[in-house]
Every structure is written in C-alpha cells, then in structure tokens.
C-alpha cells in the first residue's frame, strides 16, 4: 500500500487510512462527550457499509451506535429532533445520494431553525458519508453535493482529502454547534496518509484551506479526491516548466476566499477543479469571487474543470470521460498560462 506523503512531516503524526481516521475521530469524540451518538444504515452490527464505523458498536454499545431502518427522510429528521433535544447526533448516509430523501429535513429543519427561532434553537448535528463518484456505480450513486449544500446559509460544508484532515475536521464538525455536512469520498477511504494526529485534543478549524503545493505560475483549487488529481497534474506541469500552486479547499462553506485571493494575487491565474457539474458549481462561485476580489490580478479568465454536464454513465469509457482527469487539469493550466 502506498502512503501519500503530505506537507510538513511531523514526528507526532502517524499513518493510517482515511477510513480508520474517520473511525478514530468519531471514537475520540464519543469518549469525550456522552451526548455524541452515531446513527445510520448498517453502522452498528455490520460495522458500516464501508466499514467506517468498524468496532464502534463493541466499544459504545447499541444505545450510541444505532442501526436505522432504510428511511433517510425519517432518521435525518429524527436526528434533527435529537439535536434540538440536547444530543449531538452523527447521522451517516450510506452515500450522500440518499440524502436527497432527507434534504428537506437538512435544509428546512436543521439549517434554518436557528434563524427562524431568533437564535434559540441551535442544531448541533453532523451529516456524513461518501459523496461523489466511486467507480462504475451509475447516475444515481455518483453525485457530488458540494454546491447543493454550500448554497444554504445555516450549514457548514466540509470535504477533506487526507486522513489527517478527515479526522481533525470530523472532530471539529462534531464539536461544532451548527449542522455540518461532511462529504467523504469512497475511493479515498482506503488511501493511507502520513498526517494523522493521535492527540485527542487536536482539531482543525472549519473554514481554512491548505496550500498543499506552493507554486508561482497558476493556482489550482480542488477538494476531496480531486486534490490528489490536482497534485498529480502539478507534478506533470512542473516538467513542462509551469509551477502550479495547489489549494486544498477542505471547507466549502465557509470558503477560505482569502487564501485563494492571496494565491491568485501571486500567480494571476486560476483553475478550479471539482467532479460535479459545471452549472452553478463551486468553480462558478470561485470565479465570481475572483471577479469581486481579484479582478485586477487575473491575467486569464478563471478556468473551470468539472464533471461533464450529464448524468453519470455506467460504461467504463464514458465514466472516464465524464469525470475530470489529470490530463484535463494539465490542459486547463496550460490554457490559462497561454502555453497550450
């Protein structure tokens, strides 16, 4: 198994998979706070559809690791009520595609009630699970929801790449007094990273991007699995004489606009990468923000690398075409550097 080296090696950090890091993050928070519990389909006796909750039932018992019926709308709403009632639920969606069943409870009940109640009714809840495309699972199981949830005031939306970030940001999400959408990626679950803190008090603040690779010629923003593709592209670009800076957004809402703007002021070029559809996507938002905050620094139009504007096809060749590939990012970077 390859271990992905991340920025700034630290002797206090250890290597583990994203899957293990998420499990450890939840376990640490459950030891720390007795009101934290996990509910979802297959989270307990099956140890998680993707084994993210491996071992948690054994440690915490069925009161706190709760297998639910396959009724996302109902158990998401139940989680919201439990949060209003003083608990801190972690609601797992087997995939975020199924959160469509529950989106009314997430937005109308979890996100808006603090405002509608004049500040009385906080809803500390985490909705988490794999998001976006996995591999050959077709149109209804491959959807990235980052821009859907990021649209809504009252929510925070987090989408980590590395194991260390996954753990530290999930812990932050669980401690956060607001509803947090925590978008994981199935293909990353088995990836091992060397950046995981084992300090149970270590959390990352939500809302800070990370420059994973400094560079001076072009800024590439990405989140979740696309960070890996952006880093690969950056290595290839270096051989072509283009020094790319790769920003891992980590948090979609709030978005660390300042870090992106500062980078663009240096590189004067921006490529945004996301696997979801182009229309009203995260890249569209970043492009608009750059017009507002860095217009005079742009030497080329912002370039959006996105998934194709189609429902995800099943056929291997078509799926490959529908998702952003390293070559697409390289071509985009070359284009904004006028080197294509």
């Amino acid at each position, binding site marked *: 198994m390859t271990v992905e080296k991340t920025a700034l090696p630290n002797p206090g950090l250890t290597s583990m998979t994203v899957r293990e890091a998420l499990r450890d993050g939840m376990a640490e928070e459950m030891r*720390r*706070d007795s*009101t934290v*519990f996990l509910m979802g389909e297959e989270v307990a006796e099956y140890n998680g559809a993707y084994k993210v909750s491996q071992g948690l039932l054994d440690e915490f018992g069925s*009161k706190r690791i709760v297998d*639910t*019926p396959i*009724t996302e*709308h*109902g*158990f*998401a*709403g*139940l*989680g*919201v*009520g*439990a*949060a*209003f*009632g*003083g*608990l801190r639920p972690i609601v797992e969606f087997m995939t975020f595609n199924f959160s469509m069943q529950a989106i*009314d*409870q997430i937005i*109308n*009940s979890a996100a808006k*009630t*603090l*405002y*509608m*109640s*004049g*500040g*009385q*009714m*906080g809803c*500390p809840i985490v909705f988490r699970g794999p998001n976006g495309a996995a591999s050959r699972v077709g149109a209804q199981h491959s959807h990235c929801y980052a821009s859907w949830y990021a649209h809504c*005031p*009252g929510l*925070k939306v987090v989408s980590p790449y590395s194991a260390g970030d996954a753990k530290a940001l999930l812990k932050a999400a669980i*401690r*956060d*007094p*607001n509803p947090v959408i925590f978008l994981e990626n199935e293909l990353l679950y088995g990836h091992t990273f060397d950046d995981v803190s084992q300090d149970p008090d270590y959390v990352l603040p939500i809302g800070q991007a990370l420059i994973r690779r400094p560079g001076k010629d072009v800024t590439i923003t990405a989140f979740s699995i696309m960070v890996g593709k952006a880093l690969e592209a950056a290595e290839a670009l270096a051989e072509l004489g283009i020094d790319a800076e790769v920003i891992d957004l980590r948090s979609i809402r709030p978005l660390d606009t300042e870090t992106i703007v500062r980078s663009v002021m240096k590189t004067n070029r921006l490529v945004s990468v996301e696997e979801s559809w182009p229309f009203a996507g995260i890249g569209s938002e970043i492009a608009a923000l750059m017009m507002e905050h860095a217009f005079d620094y742009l030497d080329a139009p912002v370039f959006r690398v996105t998934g194709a504007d189609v429902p995800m096809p099943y056929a291997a060749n078509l799926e490959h075409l529908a998702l952003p590939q390293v070559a697409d990012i390289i071509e985009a970077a070359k284009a904004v550097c006028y080197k294509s």
Partner: protein
Amino acid sequence: MLLIRRFEERAAQLYGMGLIAGFCHLYIGQEAVVVGIQSILQPQDTIITAYRDHGHMLAAGMDPKGVMAELTGRSGGYSKGKGGSMHMFSREKNFFGGHGIVGAQVPIGTGLAFAHKYKADKGVSITSMGDGAANQGQVYESYNMASLWKLPVVFIVENNHYGMGTSQERSSAGPNYYGRGQGWNIPGEKVDGMVYTAVKEAAARAVDHARAGKGPYILEMDTYRYRGHSMSDPAKYRSKEEVETVKVDRDPIDHFRIYMTKTLKISEDKIKKIEDDIKVVVLEAVEFSKTSPEPDPSELYTDILNEGNAVT
C-alpha cells in the same frame, strides 16, 4: 381555551388591518385539544407541532405578548420577528415549534423522544400533526422507528377533516388515523377533540403509556376548525351549515362552560372575571405587538450560525 379563542380573533383583526402578513393559520374551534393535553404534562415533556401553532404556544404557557409580536414581525416576538406565525419556539416552555413543512415536525418530535430516552429524563414528546400531514411518508417512517425503539412519544392527529381545501374523504383512503399504527403495534384511540375532559383522559392514558417505557401511542382528535385554512382561504369547499352546526352543537368552549358551572360548580361571577382577565391579557398583547419596534436591520445577518464550540 378562551384565551386562545380571543387571541386568534384579535390576530384575525390585525391581519385584516395589515399588521400581520403572510401566512396566519388560526386555531379557532380546536382549543380543547391542546388545553386538554397540556393539563396532564410534566415540565420536562416536550411539544412540537406544525404551522397552526398559536394555540399550542399559549397552552404551553408562552407569553401572548411574545406570540402576537411575532405575528406582527416585531423585535419583541419569540423569534425577534424573524420567524413569523409558523416559526416560533420556546426552550423555556419546551415548545419546539412551529414547523412550516407539512409532516416534517413528526420525525423531529420522534427525535425529541429519542433524546428523552437517551437522557433518561422521563420526558414524553407530544408530536402533533393534522389529518393532512397524516398521509406524509415520513410520518410512517417515524411510527416505525418510534415503535422499534420504544420511544416515549404521543402522536396527536388533530383531525379537523380538511387538509387545506381537501376534505378527509378526498385525501385519505381509510377513515381511521388512530388505527394507522397497527402495523407497528402502536395503540391508538379516537377522541372527541371538542370535549376537554375527553381529551384530558385520553391524553393521560397515552402519556402514561409512553412515560412507562411502553413506546408510542396515537390519539386521533376529532375536531374542527371554524376559519379557513389560512387567512386567505374563504373556505368555499364546505357549507355554512356544516360550520354552523359544529359551532352550535359541539363548540369546545360552550361545552367547557357548562362543565365549569354544572360539574365544577364555578359561579357565573367567577367565569365573568376570567373572561374579563383574558380580555385584558389579549389587549395588552395587541398593544405590545403594535408598539414593539421592528427588528433592527442588523438582525438580518444574526442567528445564521452559532459561534464557537458549545461543548461543555
């Protein structure tokens, strides 16, 4: 009950004057339901309902001034004027809203029951819905989980026989909402929701059942709303005679007045005094709702997110 009725009559007036806007769903006719249930609750019990919620709030002991000022969109309202008729809450009174999406309060109320059981605080969640909401899928998802996990929740179906303009007969296959928990082994009963004592006795049975750890219970309250669905509804889908018959034969307040004089032996003077007191309370609420200032413009961007980590 009389407080709720007088309050709602005034709310209708203020709506007509343009002081209340948007949606405003009056509870007139259904008063015995909330008052009967409230009479047997304990302080740790929680209450949640949909958008026809003014009566629930007043029954829960929330201040009529704060409720009326929310209706007029003023800073003295329970949600600082940011919620409106359908979105009011009181942590102090354990009233959890006030929800505008038909049926969405049912899983949330089930979640409040989950929290009662988790914390072992002996509380019961009173989760109300109308006959319209009772056809929502999430209600049955909630029945399933509530029964599966033996959650302390009493589901109240306030059957006023019309989901907006659609009668029960035109919307619901099968007339018995109280029997819809059978598949999940949830006991249910139908109650004359126009009779305070009937509501109180049934609520006591249901709440005792839930509090004892035996799981959920369904009470179908046979009731009636005198006004339209909301203030903009002239209610042409039913006859005047139908409404008048209920008002004359089954009015919950008339019924309770007879109960007070005949059974409780309360004197007419005492009743008159109660009526006068209520008049004053409602007038004060109206006055407060007119004089409380509108929310400061700076409130537009507050209460969107809680700051900090509220972990103790």
